[in-house]
């Protein structure tokens, strides 16, 4: 593989003590899977095979992957409208995700949820939604439940910078420290709320400072560096499992493309975009792994081939899955009971 500009830009540093080669390769593969899942979805959307809205996260992969690498079975997450990366990182199968995007019955939500609502409860994903602060109080409730049921599970709440201007943000942060719940707020700050630059949405743009006023540990990390994200989340998870309450992490990252597929994104400065592209988290980790002896060029090529094969199989699965009958549109609203109280 040839070295790109990005691979020359960032310093390699020394290998992390708390991550094995296997874990690091998993991170690399997952980030690549997310990137290529979204590239594929974009192509299929532009070809008219997928309808609705598609909010892509190319550039942001290090945040969900670094975060979910610090979680274990039983831990839960909430996600957002830009959530493909979050749910793949948590363990969703791209086959059923593509099926959801194609509106097929084999999709995670039987083709009713679409891109913005992909959730696999068996993976601890308690929902994604298109209302930007909608997930924060829900994550709070899930974390409170972890605590009340005396488990050592934790909840991660993913949200974007846009959500921090909504009332739900304040209410969730306030209650989380009041009740000392095992919750990790992970703000994926990609610097734009649709067209609006992040720094134009608040006078106080120092998010960790805002979180500290609610009395929780808070830090801002480089969201383009998966190892750094992992470290910050792992520390927060440890505190949460020990019963030390919530933490707040702001991961500074960047959306390489527009808000949705079709957004010309003229509001984003060209130079800024190019600058962030040079900090692409995937080639950066690839270079680190090679330097540290965790990955050969052959292995990297093989990972790419496997990812491409997985995605191709996913597309084929989606396209060959049945389309739902129209009557399915009426199902799953609520249970009707008959006069004897039996569901019918």
């Amino acid at each position, binding site marked *: 593989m040839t070295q790109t500009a990005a691979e020359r830009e960032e310093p390699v540093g020394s290998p992390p003590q708390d991550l094995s080669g296997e874990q690091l390769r998993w991170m690399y593969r997952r980030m690549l899977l997310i990137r290529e899942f979204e590239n594929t979805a974009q192509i299929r959307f532009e070809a008219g095979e997928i309808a*609705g809205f598609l909010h892509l996260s190319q550039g942001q992969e290090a945040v969900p992957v670094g975060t979910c690498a610090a979680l274990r079975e039983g831990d839960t997450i909430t996600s957002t409208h830009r959530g493909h990366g979050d749910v793949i990182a948590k363990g969703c199968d791209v086959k059923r995700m593509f099926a959801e995007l194609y509106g097929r019955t084999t999709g995670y939500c039987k083709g009713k949820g679409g891109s913005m609502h992909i959730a696999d409860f068996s993976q601890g994903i308690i929902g994604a939604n298109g*209302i930007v602060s909608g997930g924060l109080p829900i994550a709070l409730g899930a974390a409170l439940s972890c605590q009340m049921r005396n488990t050592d599970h934790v909840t991660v709440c993913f949200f974007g910078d846009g959500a921090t201007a909504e009332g739900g943000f304040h209410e969730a942060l306030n209650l989380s420290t009041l009740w000392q719940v095992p919750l990790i707020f992970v703000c994926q700050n990609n610097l734009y709320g649709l067209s609006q630059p992040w720094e134009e*949405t608040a006078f106080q743009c120092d998010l960790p400072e805002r979180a500290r006023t609610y009395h929780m540990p808070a830090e801002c990390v480089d969201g383009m560096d998966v190892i750094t994200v992992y470290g910050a989340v792992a520390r927060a998870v440890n505190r949460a499992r020990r019963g030390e309450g919530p933490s707040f992490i702001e991961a500074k990252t960047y959306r390489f493309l527009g808000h949705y597929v079709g957004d010309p994104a003229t509001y984003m400065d060209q130079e800024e975009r190019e600058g962030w592209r040079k900090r692409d988290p995937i080639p950066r980790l690839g270079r680190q792994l090679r330097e540290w002896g965790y990955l050969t060029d052959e292995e990297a090529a093989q990972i790419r081939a496997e990812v491409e094969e997985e995605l191709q199989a996913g597309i084929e699965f989606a396209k060959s899955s049945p389309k739902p009958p129209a009557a399915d549109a009426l199902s799953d609203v609520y249970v009707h009971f008959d006069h004897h109280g039996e569901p019918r």
Partner: protein
Amino acid sequence: MPKMTMVDALNTALHQEMEQDDSVIVLGEDVAVDGGVFRVTEGLLDAFGEQRVIDTPLAEAGIVGTSIGMAIYGLRPVCEIQFSGFSYLAFHQLESHAARMRWRSRGAYTVPMVLRTPYSGGVRALEHHSESREAYWAHTPGLKMVIPSTPRNARALLISAIRDPDPVIFYEPKAVYRAFREEVPEEEETWPIGKAQVVREGEQLTMISYGAMMRPTLEAADKLAQEDGVEVEVIDVLTIAPLDHETFSESAKKTGRVLIVHEAPRSFGPGAEIVARLVENSFWYLEAPIRRVTGYDVVIPLFAYEKAYLPSADRILRAARETLETPA
């Protein structure tokens, strides 16, 4: 007369009202620099500056609450909620404050604001981005609820809404935004809020609809004329609250048969209220049960099911024929 899309027509209304009244302010998410995701507010920032065209953060309750305060103190805010499904974050401000301020202050304070927001299916989006919940607002005493159906009536109604002394929820049918062009006179034109419009005259059946559903309803009316030789009367509701029931019952007294079409869920939808008014005012003239063709009592589904959910010209035609065939 220039031919315009509904987007052009709404944009023209905003330009014209901002031009002639300095107290008109536009605010919302992505409305200024970006010109709005559907381009309705395009060019306003350049024309009127950032004092009057304000990009807000994602803060729907804040946007609406701010608008209420501005409206009470001398301005005429026109706020945009990017999709009608996002307005639920502002429900409290609308229901508890915007709607009640005149009543609460016994007329001392009024809230001359407009909340513009795109509603309706037809663009194959999904929940929060396609739904029709006009009944919430129509059910709230103190709010006016307007839904245009064409470029020309959209321009006229938006101007009326901006000049109205009370809060107006203005639903824009996004399925119509760029669906067709219509001649819109350059000179100012208004349409009274609270007045429906008979858009096609007939003797045998009254069809009542509004917003994006006017197109399939009119298509069905055309087919009935061509295929069955039946002339139906079609009424465009235009204002959901307050409802112009005189126009409905006048027509029902003439035709004796009524069909109502909306894409909002069926139960407790605007159709239910229209039926009630008709029964109250024209019961003795009715010759057949009033029928409704509506959305179903489900969340609007994603694209795979959207066609099945939305009333189509065929569904309307079937119901119209059943109504016409019912013996008096």
